[in-house]
């Protein structure tokens, strides 16, 4: 088994070797990028931390879970709570709701950063690219560029992201998320902005501090944090959803499994 927690136990020597290799190539590969202590240190594959059944490293306590519902304006909160209840009731009936995700649509931003499967971070001149294994999702963060006006931001799954380095932290701003692309089923409008502080806490620990802002739907910033550990030498799998056997029950609208094939 490829133990998800093994990066936490990676011998220090191996970690230093990885670090040394990444730094050694930095001046050649990343000549155009601004000088930063993180020149290539985020490059590599990462796993959500902690994994199910993984005992967290006491040095890196996992981020606290979000408390309570998202800060939606009252008129949207009521609807959101009703939907949460509908999802719970559908589960209790054994026919979970048939969602976009069950349809095999990618989860987009910010849900992609949840790290359902491993993700790969690539630092190249002027750009940081993040690939999530689930659904082959790719987001591109353009460095040291001005964010485009909202009017120019074509709605999509991953939006338009710009970023810059502040020491070991990549500051990212994302706009242009399609309204149907929702995290935790929370509605949003075209003014939604996702701000992230992606921090290399140590060579093998990464955190994404996310703040969602939306003046039309939220009463204030909605914040949460995800953490990741390095998965040394991991090679990403491809993921094309070409054989989906879940379907929507025409009578109940719930999810069913197609039997026999």
């Amino acid at each position, binding site marked *: *088994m*490829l133990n*998800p927690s093994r990066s936490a136990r990676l011998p220090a020597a191996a970690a230093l070797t990885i670090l040394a290799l990444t730094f050694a190539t930095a001046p050649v590969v990343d000549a155009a990028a601004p000088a930063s202590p993180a020149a290539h240190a985020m490059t590599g594959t990462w796993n*959500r931390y*902690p*994994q*199910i*059944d993984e005992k967290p490293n006491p040095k890196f306590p*996992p*981020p*606290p*879970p*979000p408390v309570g519902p998202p800060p939606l304006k009252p008129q949207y909160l009521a609807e959101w709570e009703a939907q*949460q209840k509908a*999802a*719970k009731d*559908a*589960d*209790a*009936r*054994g*026919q*979970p*709701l048939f*969602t976009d*995700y*069950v349809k*095999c649509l990618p*989860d987009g931003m910010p*849900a992609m950063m*949840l790290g*359902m*499967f*491993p993700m790969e971070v690539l630092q190249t001149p002027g750009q940081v690219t993040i690939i999530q*294994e*689930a659904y082959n999702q790719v987001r591109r963060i353009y460095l040291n560029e001005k964010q485009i006006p909202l009017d120019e931001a074509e709605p999509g799954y991953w939006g338009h992201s710009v970023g810059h380095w502040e020491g070991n932290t990549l500051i990212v701003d994302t706009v242009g998320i399609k309204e149907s692309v929702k*995290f*935790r*089923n929370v509605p949003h409008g075209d003014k939604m902005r996702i701000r992230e502080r992606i921090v290399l806490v140590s060579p093998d620990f990464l955190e994404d501090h996310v703040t969602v802002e939306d003046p039309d739907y939220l009463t204030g910033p909605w914040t949460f944090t995800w953490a990741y550990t390095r998965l040394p030498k991991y090679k990403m*799998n491809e*993921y*094309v*959803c*070409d*054989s*989906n*056997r*879940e379907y929507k029950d025409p009578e109940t609208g719930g*999810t*069913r*499994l*197609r*039997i*026999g*094939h």
Partner: protein
Amino acid sequence: MRIAGFICAALGLGAAAVTLAHHSFAMYDSDHQIKLAGKVKSFEWSNPHVYIELDANDNQGVPKDYTIECASPGILNRVGWKFNMIKAGDSITVIIAPLKTGEPGGLLKQITLADGRQFSNGGPAGKPNIK
């Protein structure tokens, strides 16, 4: 659902189970798992799930074609599976959480191959609660 609840709690996401796997596992009855021994009719290594069609007798001794849902190839690779480790005609034993509808199908919890090797279905699918 106990398992979905556990995953949510473990990852601190409230009702976001749907983002942790391709779908909620509420279709399956993880509290009443069953063991089946039979011959593989087909093995499909694909996303979003790997599927095994298994010819096995139900608990009344009636032969049936079971559709067994496994995790995705990525998850299974990470717990030691290989895309070609199962072939049509192989004798296998599985522990599954059966479909609540009563149809012959279920979510894999554990598989034992003809050579005795045993594999889980990855973390999100949960563990067997029978032997």
